């Protein structure tokens, strides 16, 4: 990848929460890059550290108790971790913005949706009230909501419509990167299909890069160019869709695929992963997946696997692949 095409680089990022119960190691030494216009899926189960990663990039890790303990986040080559609060505020909404999981709670219930979209525009662009409102109306039309509904309040919209409003707010200043945190998890499947289609179309039109956080491997197959699988704060496998879906290497990724009931093949029994996600306060020694791993070796219990490139662009963290 050429350097000038790199939009976002995350290097060796670790984010921990320092609580009374101990240090929660939410994100541990993750690396990834995103090129302009590219879509990457970040997949993992509850507690894998997906949302913390997103908050880290946005500069929204609640501090205290959270703190970035190591690593770098470069956005167009600029280090975000050393940026001042003001600089971050200028970036957020303009250069990168976020779509939150729950459209029911991420909108302000006492402002009209038009005002909420215009607010972002006025913050970042020197536009009069009238012009900002006009632009808000255009954006609302773009996400498929008639401009007449600008003066309505969030409670007058259905779940799918609210998520469209959230997307409109995120896109208002044509950011270069969108971080979407489970954008369709709270929606019904037919509405999810509508919202995903809308996001794909807009992304194509605007050339926005996207980091899509989800637990759904199906959504990733549908929307992303590449995918990273997270487990216990680490990226255990990363690569293009072909790499990860067809040439699955990490036992956790295999386990995820085995757990999914399939529409095409009738299987008698699912093959779940035994056990539970480890507590991030007390991660197991060695590879964090070893207590649940069907292919666990003696050395897995003591040695942490390093990121290994098994084929060009396909990275795995597993001792069996080293």
């Amino acid at each position, binding site marked *: 990848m050429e350097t000038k095409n790199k939009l976002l680089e995350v290097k060796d990022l670790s984010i921990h929460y320092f609580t009374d119960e101990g240090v929660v190691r939410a994100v541990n030494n993750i690396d990834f890059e995103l090129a302009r216009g590219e879509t990457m899926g970040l997949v993992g189960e509850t507690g894998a550290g997906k949302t913390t990663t997103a908050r880290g990039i946005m500069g929204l890790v609640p501090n205290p108790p959270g703190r970035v303990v190591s690593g770098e986040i470069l956005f167009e080559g600029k280090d975000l971790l050393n940026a001042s609060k003001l600089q971050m505020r200028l970036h957020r909404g303009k250069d990168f913005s976020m779509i939150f999981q729950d459209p029911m709670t991420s909108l302000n219930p006492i402002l009209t949706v038009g005002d909420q979209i215009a607010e972002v525009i006025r913050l970042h662009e020197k536009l009069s009230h009238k012009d900002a409102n006009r632009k808000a109306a255009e954006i609302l039309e773009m996400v498929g909501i008639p401009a007449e509904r600008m003066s309505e309040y969030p409670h007058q919209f*259905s779940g799918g419509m609210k998520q469209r409003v959230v997307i409109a707010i995120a896109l208002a200043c044509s950011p270069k990167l969108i971080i979407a945190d489970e954008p369709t998890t709270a929606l019904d499947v037919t509405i999810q*299909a509508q919202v995903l289609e809308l996001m794909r179309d807009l992304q194509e039109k605007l050339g926005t890069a996207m980091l899509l956080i989800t637990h759904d491997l199906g*959504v990733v197959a549908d929307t992303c160019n590449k995918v990273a699988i997270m487990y216990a704060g680490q990226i255990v496998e990363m690569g293009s869709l072909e790499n990860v879906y067809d040439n699955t290497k990490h036992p956790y990724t295999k386990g995820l695929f085995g757990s*999914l009931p399939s*529409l095409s093949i*009738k299987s008698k029994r*699912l093959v779940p992963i035994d056990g539970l996600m480890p507590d991030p306060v007390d991660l197991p020694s060695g590879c964090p997946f070893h207590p649940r791993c069907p292919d666990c070796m003696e050395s897995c219990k003591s040695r942490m696997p390093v990121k290994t490139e098994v084929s060009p662009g396909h990275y795995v963290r597993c001792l069996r692949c080293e």
Partner: protein
Amino acid sequence: MSNTLIEVQNLKKYFKTNHGMLHAVDDVSFTIEQGQTLGVVGESGCGKSTLGRVIIKLLEATDGKVLFHGEDITARPSSLDDRRRMQMIFQDPFSSLNPRMSVSQIIAEPLQIHHVCKSKEDLDQRIRNLMDTVGLAERFTNAYPHELDGGRRQRIGIARALALEPEFIVCDEPVSALDVSIQAQILNLMQDLQEERKFTYMFITHDMSVVKHISNSIIVMYLGNMVEKSDADELFEHTLHPYSKALLSAIPEPNIHKERRRTILRGEITSPIDPEPGCRFAARCAYATEECSCRTPELEEVLPKHYVACHHVRAINGLK
């Protein structure tokens, strides 16, 4: 047939609201055979949970009958005996357990209400057996729900439903709040229990792939109406109703090679309050004609044992 456990006949449940009558379940009929699983699929607001609740009499039916072993249970007042034979597993393992009761108290409650156990030792033994059955370690006996993760909480919910050895269990989205690896564990547990104890399940979910995995027969609901009913394999092989087709095509599959022709539904679910006559799906249906918005389609047998409620089902699918 002698081994029919549940027979639902023209069941209706309306709720009175300030804006009019809400038709949550409208004229639904089906049967469930002993030891089988009926999957009920649909999106939020289609009446699937209400249907489950009316069948086990947590809600009273507005009209229609539910026959359990051939006896009409809607007509008689609910008895402890009916309650014992029909149980429910709830969707949300976070809000369906009393936070002030320990695991053993939660599981003991139905046993105590029904005076099943003669002595304290007997009760403790039963609780231990139940916890063992659902895969909860003994060290959790005195734990409280907030100390446990979602998967373990759902196991408590299952143990509580099993405590009285029911014949029929309504499972209302039992796995949708869980992570996929845990979801697979719970689905396997439920299948093992069914095999072992011949339970009959009614499995309510919005997830087509889960319903395909677990069900013998399936009904698809839309706004209180049943739009399609058939055996599970048949339904996936020949999906006939335009809504079922859209629902199926909307699922993102974890497969990067399958080229999908997606039918994306325009618009959203319409209001179930005082619905006009006509097909309730007409507003979102690509094939809708004038007929659809004035005449309600009847459920008819389009293929052997495969029922569809749609005026144009034959034309859409090229059937005679």
